[in-house]
């Protein structure tokens, strides 16, 4: 099968093509590659990527000596490590209602998406997690990407009535391009709590793509905390396929120096009486940039949708930026959809109050920032919250708390 060419390849795209052409690829991989090559790496002239220029960020990526990131480890029922695309699975093999294994081939495509196509083109294997019972203990997935390009693919299926807690830690080394795909299918009355901790070296480029499909009365709770990277985007596509399902999507980004963190979500209410609660908190310091793009799409079939989206940002310095794009696209007439977006500095009155009580300025600022993102951390799964909290504290410490 012939390998398609890019129209006008950037040096990094040319490098990707060379890497792809050198491997022995299946027809399915070539089809995915050709779909990717037709679009190329997303860039800022595309509406959905105007604040997050992946092609631009990769123009200089790929340093030979990647800066490593200190590993975060947690206790879990099963630990799945994907390190430079090598998968190891520890534990969980004797747990009733849980199966975690590596299967050949890429995951199913979930959307027309260049990075998804890229991931599928390179993925020779997928981690498949199947849950058929109620699994109380958390399952930990550690994605670690070293030098060069690394792609991880995970498929999570929860059978009707099943439930699970997944914690994903995504750590990308400096100078690397790390793309992580997760496909989640929740059948009728299934539930999943997914916590994502994104930590990366300052020079890392990361795109995390997740798709979740919810059957009737399913419940999906996702909470993510990100420190960004040279460019880091966590993108979630959520689709309500059955009536009466619900989801909460929380995210917090803390970006400093010239880091960039992007949370993009598209929630499609294609069924009746589904509920979405979404909160985003962005904190940007230095020349950091926190991007939030949230879209609620309500199909004609999405009557009695109840959806709320709130995005708030705090800018700590003159050079910091927050870009918010909340969007509603509604075709049903009996819905409740709301969105709100705020952006500002720390409250001077609150700062003075705390300082009058004896806290020095740095501690007072840190307390207010912690309180601001605390709403997200407080509601995070207990399996992930301590690690996320520690990451936030380290971030504040580094800002001279």
């Amino acid at each position, binding site marked *: 099968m012939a390998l398609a060419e890019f129209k006008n390849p950037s040096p990094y795209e040319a490098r990707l093509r060379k890497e792809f052409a050198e491997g022995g690829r299946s027809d399915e991989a070539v089809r995915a590659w050709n779909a990717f090559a037709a679009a190329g790496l997303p860039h800022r002239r595309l509406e959905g990527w105007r604040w997050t220029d992946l092609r631009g960020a990769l123009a200089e990526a790929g340093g030979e000596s990647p800066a490593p990131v200190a590993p975060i480890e947690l206790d879990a029922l099963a630990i799945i490590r994907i390190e430079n695309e090598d998968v190891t699975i520890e534990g969980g093999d004797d747990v009733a209602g849980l199966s975690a294994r590596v299967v050949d081939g890429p995951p199913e495509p979930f959307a027309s998406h260049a990075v998804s196509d890229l991931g599928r083109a390179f993925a020779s294997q997928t981690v498949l997690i199947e849950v058929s019972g109620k699994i109380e203990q958390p399952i930990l997935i550690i994605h670690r990407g070293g030098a060069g390009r690394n792609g991880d693919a995970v498929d999570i299926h929860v059978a009707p009535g099943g439930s699970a807690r997944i914690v994903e830690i995504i750590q990308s080394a400096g100078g690397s391009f790390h793309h992580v795909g997760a496909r989640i299918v929740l059948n009728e009355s299934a539930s999943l709590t997914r916590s994502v901790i994104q930590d990366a070296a300052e020079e890392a480029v990361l795109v995390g793509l997740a798709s979740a499909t919810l059957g009737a009365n399913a419940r999906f709770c996702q909470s993510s905390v990100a420190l960004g990277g040279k460019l880091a985007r966590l993108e979630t596509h959520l689709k309500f396929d059955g009536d009466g399902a619900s989801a909460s999507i929380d995210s917090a980004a803390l970006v400093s120096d010239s880091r960039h963190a992007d949370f993009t979500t598209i929630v499609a209410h294609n069924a009746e009486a589904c509920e979405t609660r979404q909160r985003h908190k962005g904190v940007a310091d230095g020349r950091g940039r926190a991007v939030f793009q949230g879209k609620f799409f309500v199909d004609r079939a999405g009557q009695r949708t109840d959806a709320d989206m709130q995005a708030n940002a705090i800018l700590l310095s003159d050079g910091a930026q927050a870009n918010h794009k909340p969007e509603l696209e509604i075709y049903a007439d009996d819905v409740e959809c709301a969105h709100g977006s705020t952006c500002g500095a720390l409250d001077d009155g*609150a700062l*003075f109050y705390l300082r009058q009580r004896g*806290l*020095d300025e740095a501690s007072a600022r840190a*307390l*207010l920032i*912690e309180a601001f993102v605390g709403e997200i951390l407080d509601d995070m799964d207990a399996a992930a919250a301590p690690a996320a909290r520690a990451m936030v504290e380290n971030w504040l410490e580094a800002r001279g708390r």
Partner: protein
Amino acid sequence: MLKIDNLHASVEDTQILKGLSIEVPAGEVHAVMGPNGAGKSTLSHVVAGRDDYDVTDGDVTLDGENVLELDPSERAAKGLFLSFQHPMEIPGVATMNFIRTALNAQLKARGEAEVSAADFLKLIREKAKLVGLTDEKLKRPFNVGFSGGEKKRMEMLQMAIFEPRFCIMDETDSGLDIDALKMVGDVVNAMRGPGRGFLVITHYQRLLEHIRPDRVHVLAGGRIVKSGGPELAAELETSGYDQYIEAA
């Protein structure tokens, strides 16, 4: 103890304090009364160190030490406490954790031993009873969903816990019902004594029925226009501030 001498302060080029002088000796309670816009809140904020004001002239000293040079947190550690007229609601900040952090920050700055979690719990429970705040309120995020009166109780709780050397109470009586007014009086009366001073800023005489001040000062037009004994408060209640506004 607290000496404010010829204090001039402005905010965004508007001169608000125009040569204000008050001296509160240790062990005394002084009241500052005045009409709206006289500069009462500016006085409390400038002494506590809010950045928004420019001190253009004058001195503020606590036991001889110039406090205008100090950061607000350093002033707090020296024992200067401000009970805010409009206390902040701070969502996401756990009340007990915050008050303990603040207390320990003050103790640490003074080189004193910090309080343990267990000792602090005992202390805050005891003082909370004094100011009429339930355990449930202490477990909430700081002041979130509190009524105006409850926020003032929270101010009094902190004052009782920090045991500051000098307390500035900025219209603590506003928004209080009769029971709460009495509580404020009880807290102040229990704390007043040698080595501690109070500056009670108020519009009305009613709080001064519970806290009998040693001196009363009338603030109008950014300076003290009259000082006298406690009887001055009663006199103001009947005669009003008009004569002083004109004089200023």
